């Protein structure tokens, strides 16, 4: 098995290299057979990486401890499920997974573009293959997944207990999918720059890839936060750790990109900006892998040097420099005839939304790199912790939420104050009333009041938009209200999917604000049978049970939760002890309701006195963060859904692009 895997990786490297040469020469000399051969090489390289993944998977499942990777990250007693997830539990495996996803996406892109984008696609596919070569080079020469041990290990060292959790199955793959799929729009942008096809065909052709990437980045961040919440046992879900920031920054920039491309599609503006954004997004995905593996920035997740840092940094710098050079070289061809007319226009709102999103990304970048920068400049390492990120981002988030309500409803080009007043009167009133109600109810923190008002304002604008659309359809097509709603969304899925995403953002934002401001924490040491009070809940500790499997020993506390004297739940927080690596782990008990989460940690056990200490968090509205995240995902699926009319439009624009050398896309009005 290891031999097959090793061989497959070597072949993949050769095939990927060949595809670059064939694509570039094929495109330069217009040789269709060579381009077809390049395509076949890409599919073959994808197949080879798939074989390597399968080989590693089989070795993991068979517990082949002659393999260093298998011995380092699994053990014979590890459940099968985690033997599979161990595929991305270690460095070599996670790089292999990355490479595999990249090969899959490249193969799909090659298939999609076998007749489309004849000018851009070969260069785009070559760009993707260059990225693949870097990763395949690492896997073949630097950090090899199929290295054998000198002697077969009697048993493996087991997967880190923190990773023995079902989120492990979905968080890393989601994030990787998001990271890696961002390289497709980036590759097409590069292809467009090389080929000089600087109209928006690269954007249109990869729009769904960009949303796909954003979808998985969103889920990846959400799952990561949820994982931290359930496993780390500190009651929070986000600590602004460098590794978290590394996943958050590409998401921010992709969000900016998804908005600003709409301006290019509609107004033929911001061409350079969009090319820069997608370059940034891709660079940040590499940067993310770099900082999680280099040890340059100390993180709770990894303190160590893995030796890959210099390779990643070199590649990152090379990619950024080359891309910037391409962009500068093409600047003269990227001038836009159109320009901003008025601050009171949708394009202006989108511009500011972009500035804020990139501003947040920059602040996060700055805060993450601050220790390195301060050491380089002043010779002392200075860190900025979570308070820095909260302080900077809190006001920016308010601005963003405001624009989220304002931008989508305001007219393109320019808007009169009259029409503004008409459009925004009721949402603004709704926001104001919400704020006043919250104030009367006793809330005094200005930030929370502002957040609630703005959240309500955005909610109002979304309702207004849906009502207007449904009303128009009922009037014109004479449909019933539910039918009108479904058709409205189905026929304009990009737009209304977007509104649903915005709704999710508002929900998540309110959840974040409430949980940050109003979390209460109680620590209590109790004997068996004792009661203690947490907010409206009365908790009774009923005793400790210990169970044991060959793999793990569990001490589980039983707590009965009562409210108004009535028992409402039994909570079972636990301490686990993983035998193989002699490592304790915490299993938190969470009782989640839309109003508040009750979160119980078994913090300490004193064997002599029988005293057990609990740490309990009561966090209001945190439920809405997760719910909002799912609504965002749902809205994204709607926005991604293939739309017959849009497909026809893309085909038409591509035909037009093929006929005229440089096209000025006629503005098409969404129906």
């Amino acid at each position, binding site marked *: 098995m290891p031999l097959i895997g090793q061989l497959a990786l070597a072949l993949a490297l050769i095939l990927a290299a060949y595809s670059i040469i064939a694509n570039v020469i094929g495109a330069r000399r217009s040789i269709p057979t060579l381009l077809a051969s390049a395509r076949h090489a890409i599919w073959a390289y994808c197949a080879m990486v798939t074989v390597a993944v399968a080989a590693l998977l089989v070795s993991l499942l068979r517990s082949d401890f002659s393999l260093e990777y298998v011995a380092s990250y699994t053990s014979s007693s590890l459940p099968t499920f985690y033997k599979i997830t161990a595929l991305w539990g270690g460095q070599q495996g996670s790089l292999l997974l990355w490479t595999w996803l990249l090969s899959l996406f490249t193969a799909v892109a090659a298939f999609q573009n076998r007749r489309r984008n004849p000018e851009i696609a070969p260069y785009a596919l070559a760009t993707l293959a260059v990225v693949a070569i870097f990763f395949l080079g690492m896997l073949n020469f630097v950090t090899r997944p199929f290295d054998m041990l000198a002697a077969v290990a009697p048993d493996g060292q087991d997967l880190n207990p923190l990773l023995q959790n079902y989120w492990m199955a979905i968080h890393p793959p989601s994030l990787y999918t998001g990271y890696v799929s961002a390289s497709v729009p980036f590759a097409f942008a590069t292809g467009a720059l090389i080929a000089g096809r600087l109209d928006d065909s690269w954007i249109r052709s990869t729009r769904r890839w960009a949303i796909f990437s954003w979808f998985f980045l969103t889920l990846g961040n959400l799952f990561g936060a949820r994982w931290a919440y359930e496993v780390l046992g500190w009651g929070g879900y986000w600590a602004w750790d460098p590794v978290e920031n590394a996943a958050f920054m590409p998401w921010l920039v992709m969000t900016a990109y998804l908005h600003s491309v709409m301006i290019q599609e509609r107004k033929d503006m911001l061409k350079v900006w969009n090319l820069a954004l997608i370059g940034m997004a891709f660079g940040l995905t590499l940067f993310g892998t770099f900082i999680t593996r280099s040890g340059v920035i100390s993180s709770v997740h990894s303190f160590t040097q893995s030796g890959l840092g210099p390779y990643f940094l070199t590649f990152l710098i090379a990619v950024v420099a080359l891309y910037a050079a391409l962009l500068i070289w093409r600047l003269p061809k990227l001038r836009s005839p159109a320009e901003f007319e008025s601050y009171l226009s949708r394009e202006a709102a989108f511009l500011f939304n972009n500035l804020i999103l990139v501003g947040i990304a920059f602040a996060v970048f700055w805060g993450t790199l601050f220790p390195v920068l301060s050491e380089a400049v002043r010779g002392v390492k200075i*860190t900025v912790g979570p308070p820095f990120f909260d302080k900077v981002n809190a006001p920016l988030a308010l601005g963003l939420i405001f624009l989220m309500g304002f931008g989508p409803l305001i007219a393109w080009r320019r808007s009169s104050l009259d029409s503004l007043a008409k459009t925004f009167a009721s949402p603004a009133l709704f926001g104001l009333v919400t704020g006043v109600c919250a104030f009367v109810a006793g809330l005094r923190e200005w930030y929370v009041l502002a957040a609630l008002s703005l959240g309500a304002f955005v909610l109002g604008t979304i309702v207004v938009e849906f009502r207007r659309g449904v009303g128009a359809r009922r009037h014109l097509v004479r449909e019933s209200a539910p039918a009108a709603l479904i058709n409205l969304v189905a026929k304009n899925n990009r737009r209304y999917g977007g509104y649903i995403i915005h709704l999710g953002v508002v929900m998540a934002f309110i959840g974040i604000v409430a949980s940050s401001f109003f979390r209460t924490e109680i620590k209590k040491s109790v004997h068996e049978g004792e009661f203690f009070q947490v907010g409206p809940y009365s908790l009774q500790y009923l005793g400790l049970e210990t169970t044991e499997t060959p793999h793990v020993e569990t001490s589980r506390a039983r707590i009965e939760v009562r409210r108004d004297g009535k028992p409402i739940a039994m909570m079972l927080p636990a301490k686990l002890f993983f035998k193989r690596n002699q490592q304790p782990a915490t299993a938190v008990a969470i009782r989640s309701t839309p109003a508040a989460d009750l979160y119980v940690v078994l913090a300490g056990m004193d064997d002599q006195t029988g005293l057990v200490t609990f740490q309990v968090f009561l966090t209001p509205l945190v439920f809405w963060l997760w719910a909002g995240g799912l609504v965002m995902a749902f809205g994204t699926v709607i926005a991604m859904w293939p739309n017959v009319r849009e497909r026809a439009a893309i085909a038409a624009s591509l035909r037009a692009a093929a006929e005229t050398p440089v096209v000025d896309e006629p503005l098409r009005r969404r129906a």
Partner: protein
Amino acid sequence: MPGKAAMPKKLRFAIGAGLMVAAIAYLIVTAVRNTAEYYMTVGEVKAQQAALDGQMLRVAGRVVPGTIAWNPATLTLAFGIAQPPAQDAAASGLRPVAITTAAAVFHVICRGQPKPDMFAPGRDVIVEGRLDRDGTIEARQVLTSCPSKYAPKQPGAAQ
């Protein structure tokens, strides 16, 4: 290039965007000023102990075996930290390594927090807190390294 008449419009937007950028820069600068903490190793803190008296610090060091006192009833964790031996720090990083020679340099007390799961003798930790005159760090937080997925080779680490 757009005509001359269009320039003021462009300028107006440049000013708006510039103000936005300036506002973000201002936020970043003030936030850095208010939240910066020194990040130092035990050895560095030792070298300038007098100057750091009462400062908020993040100190990276290694838990000295045999100095750990954990009271689960009051959630009080006390231990000593020392500078990891130089060559060893890079090579083995977060894996528990028996330190026999290094004596505890600073005494750390962390109250009211559960003992982190990854906390163990010989582990590398980051302690966030204030340094007292007598060399005790009143820790607000003790961060343990999560033995990373990307840890380098760990020969014989698991017993």
